């Protein structure tokens, strides 16, 4: 099935309580699949097509504030519209899952795949000092698996998580093993797990208020310090990445999402030519695998980042490499996807000594 | 003929002296204390003519700060 469809099926099986979305290419299959599956008849999951991305993200805010497992999906221009709501969700310390199946921008751009929302996703995106937990799937299987992972992390840290997929993973079809269905949480489980949520008091002695507003600067600074402690904890515990052929690598390619698969093909060709290249694929874009990149920067002679953008993740790779080795970027934009030969050419262009 | 007599209490600390109760009172029972202010500097409302009160609760109905309690007795 398509990556977008896998997300929808995984959401039903995970026991998601509500999905609120708005159509936009190339992710509309998420909403379409959910409407076709009618999970309100089976698991009781609420599915609603909102009047806008703005309304949809604020429905997520409301649902998350009430302790429910809620998610939305969109694509780049729509995710821009959601940024206000995402900032509120982060500031109110609410768990939620947001899916961005990226297309090329800026502006209305193109409906073809892109990774140009890396900055937006990993640096906050909306106003204020905050971070999302950002997961970058590179296969349809990971599209399905990251629904559960995203929600588990979001609830563990009371922080919104994002699946940052590109249009390729959203649209391509692969075999996928869907997770075993599990029931939605009961009211009692929700009230135990989310004692802070606006569920209605139901006998609770005090009222729960979900807000991001605090006019007292001293208390607002304390709130911010608490957020930062959460982010530090996430950075310490939740870095995820995959490596291929890095043990003996002289050169390193860093790429995420579907592009990492193209790079792996390029690396296998390079190895056939006797050039030792390795791949690091960040699975969490935030927290970023800084330590592993710093370690590999002591080993390799050069690093190439390959992205469907003008060079965004390269900033984080360069910082993580502590400038020990040259870090170069190769990217295509506007919805163009490079092939393995182009990637290899780019590697040899930037590091001619590799091709001895 | 039974006679309805009333009385109100005003939480002087909570009162903001907006005067809406004074305007709403049909029997001119209430007034703002011209010679005193509460902790927050407001001339608070009080029963200036206690005998006039009929306990109709009009004052409480329009009070934005819910600082008026109303009591009523039917005297036979």
């Amino acid at each position, binding site marked *: 099935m398509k990556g977008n469809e896998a997300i929808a099926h995984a959401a039903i099986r995970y026991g998601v309580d509500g999905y609120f979305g708005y159509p936009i290419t190339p992710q509309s299959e998420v909403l379409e699949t959910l409407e076709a599956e009618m999970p309100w008849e089976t698991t009781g999951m609420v599915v*609603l097509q909102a009047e806008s991305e703005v*309304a949809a993200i604020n429905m997520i805010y*409301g649902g998350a504030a009430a302790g429910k497992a809620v998610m939305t999906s969109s694509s780049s221009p729509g995710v821009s519209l959601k940024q206000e709501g995402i900032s509120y969700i982060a500031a109110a310390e609410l768990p939620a899952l947001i899916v961005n199946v990226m297309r090329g921008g800026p502006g209305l751009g193109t409906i073809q795949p892109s990774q140009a929302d890396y900055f937006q996703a990993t640096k906050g995106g909306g106003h204020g000092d905050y971070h999302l937990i950002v997961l970058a799937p590179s296969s349809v299987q990971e599209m399905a698996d990251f629904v559960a992972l995203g929600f588990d992390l979001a609830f563990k840290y009371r922080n919104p998580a994002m699946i940052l997929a590109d249009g390729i993973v959203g649209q391509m079809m692969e075999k996928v093993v869907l997770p075993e269905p599990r029931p939605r949480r009961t009211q009692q489980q929700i009230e135990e797990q989310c004692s802070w949520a606006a569920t209605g008091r139901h006998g609770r002695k005090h009222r729960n208020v979900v*807000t991001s507003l605090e006019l007292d600067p001293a208390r607002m600074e304390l709130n911010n310090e608490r957020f930062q402690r959460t982010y530090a904890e996430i950075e310490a515990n939740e870095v995820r990445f995959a490596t291929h052929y890095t043990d003996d690598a002289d050169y390193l390619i860093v790429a995420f999402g579907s592009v990492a698969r193209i790079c792996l093909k390029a690396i296998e060709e390079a190895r056939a030519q006797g050039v030792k290249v390795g791949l690091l694929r960040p699975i969490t874009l935030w927290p970023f695998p800084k330590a592993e990149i710093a370690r590999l920067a002591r080993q390799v002679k050069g690093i190439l980042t390959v992205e469907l953008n003008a060079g965004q993740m390269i900033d984080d790779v360069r910082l993580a490499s502590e400038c020990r080795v040259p870090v170069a970027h190769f990217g295509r934009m506007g919805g163009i996807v490079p092939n393995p030969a182009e990637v290899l050419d780019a590697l040899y262009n930037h590091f001619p000594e590799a091709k001895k | 003929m039974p006679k309805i007599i009333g009385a109100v209490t005003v939480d002087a600390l909570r009162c903001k002296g907006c005067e*809406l109760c004074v305007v709403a009172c049909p029997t001119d029972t209430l007034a703002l204390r011209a010679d005193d202010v509460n902790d927050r500097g407001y001339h608070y409302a009080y029963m200036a003519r206690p005998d006039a009160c009929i306990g109709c609760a009009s004052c409480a109905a329009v009070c934005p700060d819910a600082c008026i309690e109303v009591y009523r007795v039917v005297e036979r």
Partner: protein
Amino acid sequence: MTPEEIINPANRVYSRPRLLTEVNTHYCPGCSHGVVHRIIAELLEEMGLEDRAVGVAPVGCAVFAYNYIDVDWVEAAHGRAPAVATALNRLWPDNLVFTYQGDGDLAAIGTAETIHAANRGENIAIIFINNAIYGMTGGQMAPTTLIGQKTATTPYGRRVDLNGNPLNISDLLAQLEGTCLVTRQAVHTPAAVRKAKAAIKKAFENALAKKGTSVVEIVSTCNSGWKMTPAQSNEWMAEHMTARYPLGDLKNV
């Protein structure tokens, strides 16, 4: 009998509702918000809803409504309360979900969310405070500001050619199939307060009975923004505001 004899619990006919918290409100003296808050607290108590009522606070003067009424609350982004309420109610359908919004929140920045929630017939109650001005930010023009009315951003009075017409959004909402009650009330006299309370009670009953969206517009005052005393504001409201926003039911099915 002396007042001291009358004032004892046995004779009490009105007291502060239990669901109003002890804190003093931040509202200006004479502000309509306080009256409407009090009515809501009375109704939640009288209707036994404190355990399953969830309010959605707006951005504007009522942003701190959650500090004053002792039920669960969610503070929404500016204008988004009906979207937040949509999810709150769909995900906890047994709860009473109500929004509390001003004219800028509901009829300017949140017009889309308001109209679409009402059009879907979400089972929520919308309490809409229309005081024809942006109070919190210092008295700027609102969508409901009257022609000729002076505000911080219409210092010479609102002009149709420059600023457009006052938006009568309740009339729009009454046209939608999803609404079951759209009514315009006021709280400037004891009689008006009683009628407004009855209207909000009906709105809560409709939400619980899943009859669709109820909208109770309270034509209100902002004496600080209007630069009048509270009593003068009530008179001005009764004379000018109700001419443009006539009181009464627009729809009640």
